[in-house]
Structures are given as structure tokens and as C-alpha cells.
């Protein structure tokens, strides 16, 4: 059996044939924050998507808004894996690295595949820039690039040449050079140029002179590839065999935002979202603020506490209250979430995790808030916790969060992370019929109303909108009588209420979907994951299964409570390894719950797992199928 590891079979090897077919390519664009690498990357993504490739992207932002030009701190990158097969991750190692300046080269070269292609803008390799990048000698000359297929092109100069008659000033001209690089890569991967010309025209509609210049430079780059005899080959990546339908490239935070709106519509309630900006969660607030016409009201609060409280206020009023933040902000919301679960009101809290502790690594990804999400509240404070697996899965998981929140009258924690938030993939747009609505019933009947009386199945109390005649009532954070909801200091009532709140959350098990399995449901090794590690774990498992290893993987959408079938599944494997981007948090919970000696595979580097890292662990722990 052949390994499908990304880097194995499709290095763009020079060949006589001018257009070689490859099945998977990983390309990374990097340069200074001001160099427009995010735009370059997303334009290339768009054309790959239109070509029918499956793909996955990962931007990498610097922590500063605009660190000094030319420094390593200011390097911005965008990685894309596109393929004629199903893609699970943005790729372990780029096959092609486009580096617009020395700092970009310095900080990205170690990731490039041995023998990979390196496109360099030599125009930026001035003495000053080389020093700023902390190089001691000029890498173009000191032999350090020997192991790579290096294309040295003075993009800066070529761009200038191309636009010398444009009438633009030199700063504006310099800003166009990313489109030269884009043109080059279009030629390399044999992409049609018309859609891009159109796209540039659209993007710069308000500045036609810039549109014109960028198009000119883009074409120049393309033609340079064609004619300059620098590249001896170009490649083609065929359309992937993906399910037919209409697609859209989607980033995780967009999918979350759209999913939240969809959830509210499926429930038939208004959406009230209160947020406070924080990286990498802010764009959920930004997106939702543009969906007013779809029933979303947004509120930028003075801080995260106010945001959480305002959301609870919204829920009390009969909207589905929501908030989103990242680690430090979630820490601040703990007290308010305790109130929400004590009031038993529905609510969705999104935690887009980033590197911690404290302010940590704000622009990097991590999964180290799991225990905080499960336990970061005073008292016995059970709350459903679920996690999204891929950028587009954020959509479905957001809907699930709304469903659980309303069905069980409880706040629900929806976990994603920086990798999902900013990463993207093609999303096959669902049909309305495919998604089942879950209409909400507000109680309106005063007859026999008891504020904390419960539904037998879900243990949820009734949701009542203020304004409903005859149902006026008071709720609060003090312990409540199990029926009337009046303040109660009764010892046995309190104990019963603690048990009931826990039981209600456990009842979520009764309406869960399927447990997500990949491979046989028994064997040597089960790889368990949650959240954004889905792609890497699944890909690695598939590869190693193909290599003959007895390994399966199981990915958890529901973390609290666990899926009812999980315990039995774990016990059918000799070994269980949990791969997570923390020091072993899910492992703790699984061990406590099932008394299974599962082992962590940890990575806390602000970066997602590489497929190879997981493969290595599988090779170490699993035997081959006999």
C-alpha cells in the first residue's frame, strides 16, 4: 500500500513535459505585514477552489499590528494545501515557499520541504533587510539554500519596470509586487487568469488606477513565468472528487457566525450577541454585526463580563443570548455563566482558544482552555461543552450549541481555536431541507405554572418571555426551590437542585448524533481528539491504516457530557492516545471518567499538529494488522 502522506508523491519535479500533473501541493506565501500576503494567499485559494480542488488554508499573523518593516516580528504568512484528493489540513511542509524578503525567508525556510521550491524576491535582499532579518551573511550567496530549488527573481524591480509609466508613486508601485508573485504562481499551476483579473477589478473598484496597475503586474508575473525560462515546468492539480454541489470557501469564525444565525432561525428565536473584541474571536462579532437583516442584534459591550451579562439579559428576554471570546475573556465570564446556569436560561458562549496562560500568544492557536471551560466557575456548575472540528464544521457545531442550549435551558460552551477561526476550507452549502429546525415553545399558559417545574425528558424548565400576561416571576442567583423557584435555603432542596442541574446536562446524551469513528471499532490503538486536531489526526490515521497499522480514530464533538458510547469504545482498544494542543487536558477528563490509561500526545507551540507528528506516535504505539 502506498503512503498518502502529503509530501510523498507530488513534489514539482522538473520534467520535459511542460505541464506535469500532481495531486497535492502545499504552498506558502510570506513577506512583510505590508506586503499583502494574506490577499495573495486568499486569491490563490479562490482560484484553486474554482478549479475544483479540495483545500485547506492557514494564515499566520504577527502579534503586532505592523511591526517594523523587514523584521522577523513583522512577517506574515499564508499557507494553502490544494489537491485532487480530499484534504484534511493545510499541510505539514510547504512544497513551495514564496518569500518576499529576507525576514520571511529566515523565519519560514525551516518549514520548507527538503528539495522544495523557493521563490525569492531578490530585490528585497538589501544589506539593511538582511541585517534586520538577523542574517549574518547573505543567504542568497552563502550556500544555505543549496538543498532547495531556488528561483531568484527581482520582483521589486520587475514590478517597478512594469509600472514605470503608470503615474503611481513609488510606494504604491511597491505595494503591487505581491500580484507579480501571484501571477508567477498562477503560471506555475496553470491557472486561468481571467477570473483573477475580474476579481482584482472588483476588489479595487473604487481605485481603478490601482486595479489597472495590479492587473498589469499580475499579468507580468504570469508572463514572466511563461517566458523567462526560469521555470522549466508547470503543474496541474486536477479537480478533486468531492461531493457535487455549490461550494463556498469559509473560515471558521465566519462559519461560527453563520451557524449561530442559522441556529437561531431554526429555533425561531431572535439572536442577541454581546461581545468584546479579542483576538482571535473578534471577527465573530464583526460578522454578526453585518447580519442584522437575518435577525441578529449585536452589542459591543464595555468588557467581557458585561458582554456575558448582557447575553443573559437577552436570554431572559426571550432571545438566544450569545457571546464569544478567547481565554482571558472567558476567564472573566465565569461568574456570569454561573448565574446563567443557575437561572437555567439558554445561552451560547464561544471560546476561540489561543495560546495561554495569561495574554500568552494572542495570535497563535492552542487547546488549553478545556479545563477552564469545563470547570472555571464556582460551585457545582455543570455546563455542556462541545467543540468544532474544521472551519466548516464550526457551522454545524454552532447550530448544535443553539439546539442544546434551548432544548435543555442551559448555557453551552462552544469551543473552537485560532487555527479553525482563521483557517479556511471549501464548504459545501447545505440545502435548507437538509437541516432540521427545532422550533422553540415559549410558555404562555399561566395555569399551573411553576417557575422551576421541569420537562420530564430534558429536565428543562419552561422559557417564559417577559411581557407574557400572568406569568410574571422572579429569578436569581441564590438557591431556588425546586418547584416554585423562590429563594430556598433548605439543605435537601439544595442538594437535590445540584443533582438536578447535573442530571439535566447529562440528559444531553439522549439527543446526541453519532460518535465520529474513523476505522474499525476495535484494535490496537485508538487515537482520540477533539476540536481542530480533527484534520491531522484523521489524515494520519488514514495514512497509517494504509500502511497496515491497527489504528482507528475517534473525534469528540461532545466533551461534556461525553457520548454515551464512548466508554465502551475506548475499552475495545489496547491503547488510547489523545492528541491535543495542551499538556493533556482531555486526557485528565477521560481518565477520571473511564479509568482508562490513556496517554497524551501534546503539542503546545502555538501551531497545529503536523500529520507526520501523529503518524510517528501511531507507529510507536500501534502494531500492524496481522
Amino acid at each position, binding site marked *: 500500500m502506498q503512503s498518502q502522506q502529503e509530501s510523498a508523491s507530488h513534489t514539482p519535479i522538473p520534467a520535459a513535459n511542460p505541464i506535469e500533473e500532481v495531486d497535492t501541493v502545499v504552498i506558502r506565501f510570506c513577506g512583510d505585514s505590508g506586503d499583502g500576503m494574506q490577499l495573495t494567499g486568499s486569491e490563490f485559494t479562490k482560484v484553486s*477552489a474554482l478549479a*475544483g480542488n479540495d483545500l485547506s488554508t492557514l494564515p499566520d499573523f504577527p502579534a503586532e499590528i505592523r511591526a517594523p518593516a523587514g523584521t522577523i516580528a513583522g512577517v506574515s504568512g499564508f499557507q494553502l494545501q490544494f489537491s485532487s484528493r480530499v484534504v484534511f489540513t493545510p499541510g505539514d511542509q510547504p512544497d513551495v515557499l514564496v518569500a518576499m524578503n529576507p525576514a520571511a525567508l529566515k523565519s519560514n525556510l525551516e518549514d520548507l520541504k527538503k528539495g522544495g521550491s523557493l521563490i525569492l524576491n531578490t530585490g528585497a535582499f538589501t544589506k539593511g533587510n538582511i541585517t534586520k532579518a538577523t542574517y549574518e551573511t547573505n543567504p542568497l550567496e552563502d550556500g544555505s539554500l543549496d538543498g532547495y530549488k531556488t528561483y531568484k527573481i527581482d520582483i521589486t524591480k520587475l514590478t517597478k519596470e512594469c509600472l514605470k509609466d503608470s503615474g503611481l508613486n513609488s510606494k504604491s508601485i511597491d505595494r503591487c509586487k505581491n500580484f507579480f508573485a501571484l501571477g508567477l504562481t498562477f503560471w506555475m499551476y496553470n491557472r486561468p487568469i481571467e477570473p483573477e483579473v475580474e476579481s482584482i477589478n472588483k476588489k479595487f473598484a473604487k481605485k481603478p488606477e490601482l486595479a489597472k496597475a495590479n492587473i498589469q503586474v499580475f499579468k507580468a508575473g504570469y508572463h514572466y513565468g511563461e517566458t523567462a525560462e526560469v521555470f522549466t515546468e508547470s503543474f496541474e492539480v486536477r*479537480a478533486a*472528487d*468531492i*461531493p*457535487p*454541489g*455549490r*461550494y*463556498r*470557501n469559509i473560515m471558521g469564525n465566519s462559519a461560527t457566525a453563520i451557524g449561530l*444565525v442559522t441556529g437561531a*432561525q431554526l429555533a425561531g428565536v*431572535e439572536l*442577541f450577541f454581546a461581545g468584546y473584541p479579542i483576538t482571535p474571536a473578534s471577527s465573530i462579532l464583526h460578522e454578526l454585526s453585518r447580519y*442584522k*437583516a*437575518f435577525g441578529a442584534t449585536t*452589542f459591543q*459591550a*464595555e468588557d467581557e463580563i*458585561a*458582554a456575558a*451579562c*448582557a447575553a*443573559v*439579559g*437577552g436570554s*431572559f*428576554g*426571550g*432571545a438566544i443570548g450569545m457571546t464569544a471570546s478567547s481565554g482571558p475573556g472567558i476567564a472573566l465570564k465565569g*461568574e*456570569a455563566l*454561573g*448565574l446563567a446556569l443557575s*437561572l437555567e436560561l439558554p445561552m451560547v458562549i464561544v471560546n476561540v482558544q489561543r495560546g495561554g496562560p495569561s495574554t500568552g500568544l494572542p495570535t497563535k492557536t492552542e487547546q488549553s482552555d478545556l479545563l477552564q471551560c469545563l470547570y472555571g466557575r464556582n460551585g457545582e456548575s455543570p455546563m455542556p461543552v462541545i467543540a468544532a472540528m474544521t472551519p466548516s464544521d464550526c457551522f454545524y457545531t454552532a447550530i448544535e450549541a443553539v439546539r442544546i442550549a434551548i432544548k435543555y435551558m442551559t448555557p453551552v460552551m462552544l469551543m473552537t481555536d485560532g487555527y479553525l477561526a482563521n483557517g479556511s476550507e471549501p464548504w459545501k*452549502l*447545505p440545502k*435548507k431541507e437538509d437541516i432540521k429546525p427545532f422550533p422553540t415553545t415559549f410558555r404562555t399558559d*399561566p*395555569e*399551573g*405554572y411553576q*417557575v422551576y417545574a421541569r420537562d420530564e425528558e430534558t429536565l428543562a424548565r419552561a422559557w417564559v418571555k*417577559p*411581557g*407574557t*400576561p*400572568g*406569568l410574571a*416571576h*422572579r*429569578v*436569581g*442567583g441564590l438557591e431556588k426551590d425546586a418547584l*416554585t423557584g*423562590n*429563594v430556598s435555603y433548605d439543605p435537601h432542596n439544595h442538594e437535590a437542585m445540584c443533582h438536578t442541574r447535573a442530571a439535566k446536562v447529562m440528559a444531553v446524551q439522549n439527543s446526541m448524533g453519532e460518535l465520529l469513528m474513523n476505522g474499525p471499532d476495535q484494535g490496537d490503538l485508538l487515537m482520540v481528539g477533539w476540536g481542530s486536531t480533527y484534520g491531522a489526526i484523521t489524515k494520519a490515521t488514514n495514512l497509517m491504516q494504509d500502511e497496515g497499522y491497527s489504528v482507528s480514530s475517534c473525534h469528540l464533538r461532545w466533551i461534556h457530557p461525553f457520548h454515551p458510547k464512548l466508554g465502551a469504545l475506548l475499552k475495545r482498544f489496547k491503547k488510547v492516545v489523545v492528541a491535543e494542543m495542551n499538556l493533556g487536558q482531555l486526557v485528565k477528563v477521560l481518565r477520571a471518567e473511564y479509568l482508562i490509561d490513556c496517554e497524551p500526545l501534546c503539542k503546545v507551540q502555538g501551531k497545529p499538529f503536523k500529520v507526520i507528528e501523529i503518524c510517528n506516535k501511531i507507529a510507536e504505539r500501534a502494531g500492524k494488522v496481522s
Partner: protein
Amino acid sequence: MGTTTTNGNKGGLPVKLTRKDYQSDQDVRWCPGCGDYAILAQVQKVFAELNINRDETVFVSGIGCSSRFPYYMNTYGMHSIHGRAPAFATGLKVSRPDLNVWVITGDGDGLSIGGNHLIHCLRRNVDLKIILFNNRIYGLTKGQYSPTSELGKRSPSTPLGSTDNPFNPLSIALGAGASFVARSIDTDVKHLQATLKRAAAHKGTAFIEVYQNCNVFNDLTFINVTGKDVKADRQMPLTHGQPLVFGKDKDKGIRMTPNGIPEIVSVGDGDGQVPLSEVPLHDETVADPGYAFMLGQLQHPNFPVPIGVLRAVEAPTYDEMVADQIQLAKSQAKATDIESLWHMGDTWDAGSTAE
């Protein structure tokens, strides 16, 4: 009581309501003699008088003795967490502008832990009525000094006297840009009723500081100003359009020097006196909050303490502006069905059916 079940309330809206109709079935549990009783009673009376719909009213509070208030009102209510009531109320009001939302808070709840939510609520001018029960002490936690306690206050946490200057709640509110600012007194039944009515009628955030006596931990803290015998000389009741005068015989007045400093003048037609006609008339509607701020700064013993409405200006409310934007967005939207949201942006066809 009939179908009474909602923590034991009556529902519906009978023809003419009385104070009793606004009382919930819960026992009121403040200390005997607490000023909170009087405020509760006046709120209930005013609500009855204004025939306010109980089912469309929500009382939101934080934590503190005063914050137990919502339990005693036969309306919707939420006893939330310490200091955050304005935030809950903002979320509620913005998503449900049709409701009549009142916030109850204390000097600790509203000005210590909750100061930030309060000032942000005021600057936004969310259409909420906020009553701050100022007893200059933490009642519920048994007597620690609060942000309105006087400098040097001895309390369990400040055995040698506090070293913090107190806040002036009115100044904080005006500094935040509040559109309605008033002060009243628990025991001054008529004045309190009138002030509550004014707040009820205001569109935007109405902020009322009520001097409230905590007879257990801070008894008589306002007596220097509220005492029957000294009241006339030490309070200056404000009435829109009426001169800024005080004293039993209304023979003292307040005006500003050109340097912007308030001074007391003797009012009358005698020598060195200022004729009544030259005493400034109180104007709640001055756009510049500086005027109300100047009034709010007047303090015993140098000046009389103003009670009543210091400021009441009309301004668009936050919730109204948000509602307008939603309206606008809806009216301009090409589509509002969920599928069109999914399809926003660049889409393409792919997979085997795509050519």
C-alpha cells in the same frame, strides 16, 4: 389568587391597580426600620398610580440588601450578580425595547464593583430607570465602608478610618453624560414619588440617587441634611423654571461667578442682597452637563444639598438607535432567508456534477 403560580404571583391586568397589586407574595426581609421599605412602598404606589403594566415590567438588580428589591415586586424580575445589573438590563432592553426595565442597585453594587457598567449604561443612554440606594455602607456584608462613605469612616475593614475620598454619585453620572439625573430621600415620601414619576416618564437612562438609611450599620448618616429641623436650610429642592433658592424663607440663592464658581447670595431687595428676579432659574434641560454638575457638587456644610431633578435632556436612546439600524438593514436587505446568508460571497459549483 386563582391561577397564581409564578413564584406565587397574580397575573393579568385588572382595571385599576393598587399598591397591593405590585406586591409579590414573598416576605420582605429587610431589617425592621430599614429605609428600603419606604422606597419599595413608594415605587409600588407610583406604579399603581401610573397604572404600569406589571407583565411588561422587569426589575433587575445586583447583590446587596437593596438588590433584594425585585423579589418583592409583582413584576418580572432578576436578582443577578454583584455589580452587573446595568449590563443584564442593557442586554434585555436592547433585545426587547418593548419592555419597561428598571434597575435597582446600591452604593456598593452600583459604584464599587459595578461602577463601570453604570457609567457605560449612562453614556449609551439605554432606556432604563436606575435607582441607586445610597446608604453609604455595605449593608449585606455587614457594615464595611462603601465608595460613598465619608473619608475617615470607621468600619470593620477600616478600624482607623477609611482613607478614600467618597464618590459623589451625581457627579459620576454627569461625568458619564447621563441624560437624566436626580436625587431623592427615602423618608421624603412625596418628593420620592414625584421623582420616581419623572424618571418613569424619561426616555433614556434615568439615574436617581436615593438617600437611604441603614439603621443597622450606618444609622442616621444623612441626618445632617435630612433632619426635620435642618432640612429647610440644608436642602435645596429643585424645580424646573423656579429660582435656585433655599432656606425656610427662601431667602438664600445660588448663582455662578463669571469664573464658574457657585456662590450663595442673600435674596431680597435689601443692601448687598440679590433680587429674586436675578437669581438663576433652574433649567433641567441645559445641553451642557456643566450646569447640573455644578449643582451636584453643592454639599453640606458649605452649600445646601440639591434634591430633585438636576438634569433631564432629550436624546436618542441606544436601544432605539439599534432598533432603527436593524429596521434599516432589514428594509435594505436583498434577502433575509437563511439560505441567502449561506450563499453570501463567492460561491462555485464543484464535484462530479460540475462540468
